[in-house]
């Protein structure tokens, strides 16, 4: 069982959380400008590293907030967890959709 540190609630058991996969994937600003292969890369292709992995977790049965975790995928050791803000956390999807509408206008 993993002991995961929620940046807001502190260390809690793995069963309180749900997993959100690789962190730092930004929705392309203008999906219509992408080729099929680029869109597929965004949708389906992941780094899946053997070793250090930055990933998203959701404190589903706690504060219900998303946060980032850096974890080793072989030893499962959690190096750190962090609040999502600033670079790499992704802009809200709504802003992207607006931007992409703007572009097509």
């Amino acid at each position, binding site marked *: *069982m*993993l002991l995961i540190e929620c940046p807001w609630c502190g260390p809690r058991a*793995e*069963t309180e959380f*749900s*997993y959100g*996969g690789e962190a730092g994937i930004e929705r392309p600003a203008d999906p219509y400008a992408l080729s*099929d*292969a680029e*869109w*597929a*890369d965004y*949708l*389906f*292709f*992941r*780094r*899946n*590293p*053997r070793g250090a*992995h930055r*990933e998203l977790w959701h404190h589903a049965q706690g504060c219900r907030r998303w946060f980032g975790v850096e*974890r080793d*995928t*072989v*030893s*499962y050791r959690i190096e750190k967890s962090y609040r999502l803000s600033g670079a790499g956390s992704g802009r809200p999807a709504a802003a992207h959709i607006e931007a992409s509408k703007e572009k097509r206008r």
Partner: protein
Amino acid sequence: MKRYSALGLLRNALDYNRNWPAAWRSPEPKKSYDAIIVGGGGHGLATAYYLARDHGLRNVAVLEKGWIGGGNTGRNTSIVRSNYLWTEASLLYEKSLQLWEGLSRDLNYNVMFSQRGVYNLGHSLQDMRDIERRVNANRLNGIDAEVLGPAEVKRAIPCINTSPGARYPILGASLQRRGGVARHDAVAWGFARAADALGVDIIEQCEVTGIEVRAGRAVGVATTRGAIAADRIGVVVAGNAGVLAGMAGLRLPIESHPLQAFVSEPIRPVLDTVVMSGAVHGYISQSDKGELVIGAGIDAYNGYGQRGSFPVIEHAMQAIIELFPAFSRVRMLRLWGGIVDICPDACPIVSKTPVQGLYFNCGWGTGGFKATPGSGWVFAHTLAHDRPHDLNAPFSLDRFASGALIDEHGAAAVAH
């Protein structure tokens, strides 16, 4: 290769079993091969066997970083069936099932394939509608399948709890009578021995550490036992597929997760078939030794650690004990985890890649064991002809860009 036979058993018994020859050689790797298969699991060994037997390619090496059958081939629940929903998937798994039916004779090795039937339980009205749809789809594809009601399930499996007050009431099941189980180690050993007899070099303790690509073409591999050149390279490494792809500068739509299974202490015969439940996520059969063999779901997070977490074990046990209350006092003996390569559409990738001469066979996820002979058969064809067989053409890497996914996630009877 010395053929195995009843007479041979008798002759060796008279010698106190001291003179059995090794089942396969342990050769030093050559400088180059016509084809290299990376990964000495069931799928890789089957690929080498069919390459040698059906395509006349005998200058072939199988490179295994550990020992034969030490990875996922020895870490599954050994269930074999072909009752998938979509035509592409069911035809591929059905090819495999047909190969299973003659495999012991083909390999001159008893893989203990036992067609004891596979039940997929339905616990809700929607489950039963899905089961009827899948059974009809199977029958249209010429695959045996039946829908059973709760009374028929109870008659066939007396120890199952079909009472209407059960937490997971059983409203019926699908049954594939030709499904069953096989001895997983024997599958690896049988393919290894038969491939070796056809001239394939099986090289254990030989980890691939790099793939050499020149002008868009794979020309060889770097290994812990030196560089080896090859005209074509087939990679069949399950959970480590992404790591190998990275060596050739490729990305795969695959994520690796731990999948767990466990066995109980041996008990008297109580369950003579295979029972799976997608809704409660447990599957169970009884081995010839008497152990209950129980499969769990995957851990949600990415992992390469060949072990999973306790909540997943607890979840699977809850399901099994609800279905079979009598098993509540059976003690568990061992548990293990394998690293499975999960594809977004829960279907494999058996495909050429953007790198010439480099082929990948991966993404079988939680359901690879049943596909062992079929996977090897189509992958051998793909390597030998540099194009897929009709059966695996839909399972190309291109489908993620074209959108022609084969969505078996919700459609397969259980998470494989």
